[in-house]
Every structure is written in C-alpha cells, then in structure tokens.
C-alpha cells in the first residue's frame, strides 16, 4: 500500500489553495500549482465551483492536467470557448458586480507586505539581473478580482519593496487602490506559501501570519520573511486527509507534471 501520510509542503500548498475555493464561486485558474489546487477544489471541497481560463475557456473540467492555460486539455470538456477578448471583458465587468463571486490564483517572484507582486524582472527594469515571463493575465486579474497569491516562502521573495509591481495588491495600504484608480473592494485575500498561510489586516492592509503547516513552524516562517510580520494570530493548520493526497498523486497529477511525489 502506498503511503499517503508523507505529504510534502508543496502538496499542502495545493490543498490550501483548494480549501480557499467556495461552492458557487467562479475560479480563474492559471497553470501549475493553482491548477492542481482548483482541480482538487472541484473534486473534493467545492464541487459547485466553476473553473475559467484566461485564454477564453469557460467552465473547464479537464481530465488530464493541462500544462498551460492554452492547452487542448483545457479546451476539451469545457462548456464554452470564447475569443480571448470576450474573457477580458467578462473579467472587467466584475467591477459592477461587487461581492465575492470570483476568485483567482496568481503567482510571482517577489511580494511586499501589501501583497504587491512582481512577476516581471529582478533588478533594474531595463538591465535586469533576471527577466521573467511578464504579466500574462495576472495584472488584469488582480485589478478586478479577489486573489489568492502563491509564493515560495523565502526571505529574498518576501521583501519590503518589490523591484517591479506587475500585479498591484493593496498598493501602500488603506485607500491605496482607490487612489490608483482600482476597485477598492477587491484585492489580495491570502498568500499561500509552501510554509503557511498569510492574510491581510482589514484595517492596515498589512500582511500577517494566519497559519502554519504541521511540516513548518512560526519561527521558520519569520526567518524566511524579509519584513516584520505579526504572528500573534497564527494557528496550526490541519493536515490533509490521506485520501486527498491520494487524489493528487493518483488522479490529478499522476505524471507529476507540477507536484513531485517524495521518493
């Protein structure tokens, strides 16, 4: 019998993403870990959620894990294939809806205490030390939709000021989004890392530690966060059921495209 109790931090990250989706929500799914998390959400935690993809695919239900948002694995079995521009307009119209009908997952290389994310480049923008893909759909998503941000939890990534703001979070605190011309009632809800879960204080919009995994610790998280962080609300997060880990390994990502199974 395979062992499903030896879950990894990355698997825990996927489970945390999955737990953040509620029934009835429309989830914008990117590739990679968010996809594993969203697929898991639909299978286990929120079967009445709907997955949509920035290339214009609506109500997706992939059988095999797609490698990108334009993958045929997403196209097969989705309900509607919109032209790309139609998706962009649909997302922008969330401005009028309010509420929490939609949720989205974005990732990045750097994040600051207000949830501003960099997925463009490290160092000087014109002569970068390291250049990444660019915004993709993330900037549009974070403009109109509440986001869950996925990050590797390292001090060089959790920093006071990011080198380039690709996806604005709460900007510089309360009122920051409105001042910039963004809807103030949307923004980053949560940061899910491979060590724990961080949320944003309702008054200050500053990040705080909400929870840590059984496989991590408060101290480890503080050491790996490059800015001061309030840990007074931190709680230990329940481990995943072995059945959930079995589903990730056997059904959702059996080829280990995004999550490696421990040897």
């Amino acid at each position: 019998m395979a062992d499903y109790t030896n879950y990894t931090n990355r698997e825990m990250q996927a489970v945390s993403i999955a737990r953040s989706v509620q029934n009835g929500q429309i989830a914008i799914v990117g590739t990679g870990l968010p996809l594993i998390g969203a697929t898991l959400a639909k299978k286990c935690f929120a079967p009445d959620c709907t997955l949509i993809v920035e290339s214009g695919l609506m109500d997706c239900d992939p059988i095999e894990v797609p490698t990108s948002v334009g993958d045929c694995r997403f196209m097969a079995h989705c309900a509607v294939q919109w032209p790309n521009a139609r998706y962009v307009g649909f997302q922008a119209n969330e401005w009028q809806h309010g509420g929490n009908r939609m949720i989205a997952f974005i990732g990045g290389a750097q994040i600051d205490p207000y949830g501003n994310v960099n997925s463009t480049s490290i160092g000087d923008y014109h002569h970068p030390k390291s250049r990444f893909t660019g915004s993709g759909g993330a900037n549009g998503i974070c403009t109109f939709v509440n986001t869950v941000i996925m990050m590797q939890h390292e001090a060089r990534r959790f920093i006071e000021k990011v080198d380039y703001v690709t996806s604005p979070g709460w900007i510089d605190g309360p009122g920051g989004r409105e001042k910039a011309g963004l809807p103030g009632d949307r923004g980053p809800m949560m940061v899910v890392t491979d060590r724990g879960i961080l949320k944003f204080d309702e008054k200050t919009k500053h990040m705080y530690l909400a929870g840590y995994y059984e496989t991590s610790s408060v101290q480890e998280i503080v050491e790996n966060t490059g800015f001061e962080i309030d840990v007074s609300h931190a709680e230990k997060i329940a481990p995943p059921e072995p059945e959930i880990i079995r589903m990730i390994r056997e059904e959702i990502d059996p080829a280990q495209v995004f999550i490696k199974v421990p040897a």
Partner: protein
Amino acid sequence: MNKIHTLHDAVEKFVHDGDHIAFGGFTTNRKPYAAVYEILRQRRKDFIAEGGPAGGDWDILIGAGRVKAFINCYTANSGFSNVSRRFKNAIEQGTILFEDYSQDALILMFAGAALGLSYIPVRVMLGSDLVNKWGISKEERQKIDKLPNEKYIIQDDPFNPGQKLVLLPTPKLDTAVIHVQKASPDGTCRIEGDEFHDVDIAIASKHCIVTCEELISNEEIRRDPNLNKIPGFVVDAVVHAPHGAHPSQCYNYYDYDAQMLRDYDAASKTAEDFEKFITTWGYEPKTHEEYLNKLGAGRLIKTRVVPGLGYAPKAKK
C-alpha cells in the same frame, strides 16, 4: 478566387524587413511554426513584434536576432520553459527593445485594432509598473515609425467623473500569420477550439497569411458557415501546411511534441546550442515538407489526438 500559395511565396510576398507583425495562437497552442521557420530561412529581420501570449515562435526569431522591438505580455512554452530563454537573454543583455503590457491590454489592443479604433480605453495596468515604467522611451519611439510615440495616456473617464482610464494605442499591423485547421482556396477559415486573438489580428492587419492543416473546397466550407471564423477577403495567402503548428498543439488534430519542446528548452539555454537547433530544424530543411520528413511519420503519429478527448493522452511523457 484562388489564394493558394507555397509557404515560400506567401512569406516572400507578405513579410518584409521592418514589418510590424503578429502571430496567432497561444504559448504552446496553434503557433504558426512552419511560417516562423520560413521567415527564418528568408532572413527577414528588424520586426516590430506584437507578441501577444507568445512562446517558442517569437523566442526563435528573437534568438536569431530578427526582432527589433518586442511588445510583450507573456513569453513562455508553459510547462516546458517557464520563461522563454532567448527572450530572457535578449532583455538581460540589452540587445532588444521591449515594452511590457498586461495580457488583457494587448488582447484589447488587438480587438480595438480589429474594430478600426486608433486607441482603446481600459482600466487595467493602473497602480502597477506597467504604467509607471516604460520599456521603450519616448525618444526611441519617435525614431521608429511603426511604434506610437506614447506607451499609453492616462485620462479621466469623461462619462464617469472621478474614474481613470488608460488609453492604449492600437497596433497598425502589417502582417498577421495564423495557423488554422481548415481553409478553402478563397481564404475562408475554420478554427476549431479556442480562436484566441487570431480573428482580431487577421482583421487588423494589412495582410494575412494563413497556414492550414486541411484545404477544403470553397463549396464544402460553406456548408456550415457558422463554424467559419474568417471570410476569404480578409486573407491574402492560403498555405497548405499539415502539422504547420508543430511542435505546438492543434486542437482536434495533434498534441504538442513534448520531446521537441524539451529539446528546445535545453538547446535555448546557450546561443551555441540554440544556433545548432535552428540549423537542424530551421535552415537545413528547405521546406516545411522536408521538416516533416526529417521528423518522421512515427513521431507525428504519436501526437495524434484521441477523438473525444481532444488531445493525445500522456503526450507529456
């Protein structure tokens, strides 16, 4: 009217040095690779590239030094190369002009251009460095007539006082190159699966080259016009190029060639290995048919989709 061209003639007629070009497809799906290799062989250069959701298509032309300015929102063979490596290298080394927009912005710029608008107002990019930082300066923009002098203009929304709008200039494209499943000799196109931004760039460009998996008669394609996406008068050249999107995917026809995408990932790490790769797959085959023969039938058959699934199961392995 018969618009059927050889790939060579289509590129020779409609792709010129310095052109402002957009490709169809999305990262690893329906990218017009056959045409990319023909552009490579014909040594066309100095492109103003309107990247859209790009992957190996523009990475190859950037690596070969053919791109003067790259208007970018995302460039990766997702799942194979997290960031396209020649693109990454060109920006890190400062050998290319580049401008970042969000993907939403670029898609709407294409849609706006297709609607005949000179600019399109959006609410994205506000509060980010996509508006605070310019990749290409005003001075540099004034030297290149294909580029607008401003990256964007921020304005108050005249209909909703107190709200801000970002006005984005729409591209004046010379040529669009798209790969579709079916086309007829008069240029009518049928796209199966997600059309991405392909219809918009086809309409927005002065010229449009279409490569297709299957040529079907003008009569046959009209039997179900609701499945057709582009009327013939939009298209200048129709090229029959089966597997013309290889190694990317083509819905209902074939999956990606994971081995080649992995090989490209490894080869594009260094300039030397990249050169070897494009020599092997770009320059040495003189035509798309020679490219397919070099790949071999067995390799192509392996990527055929399973009807009902729409992809080739386990294609990643």
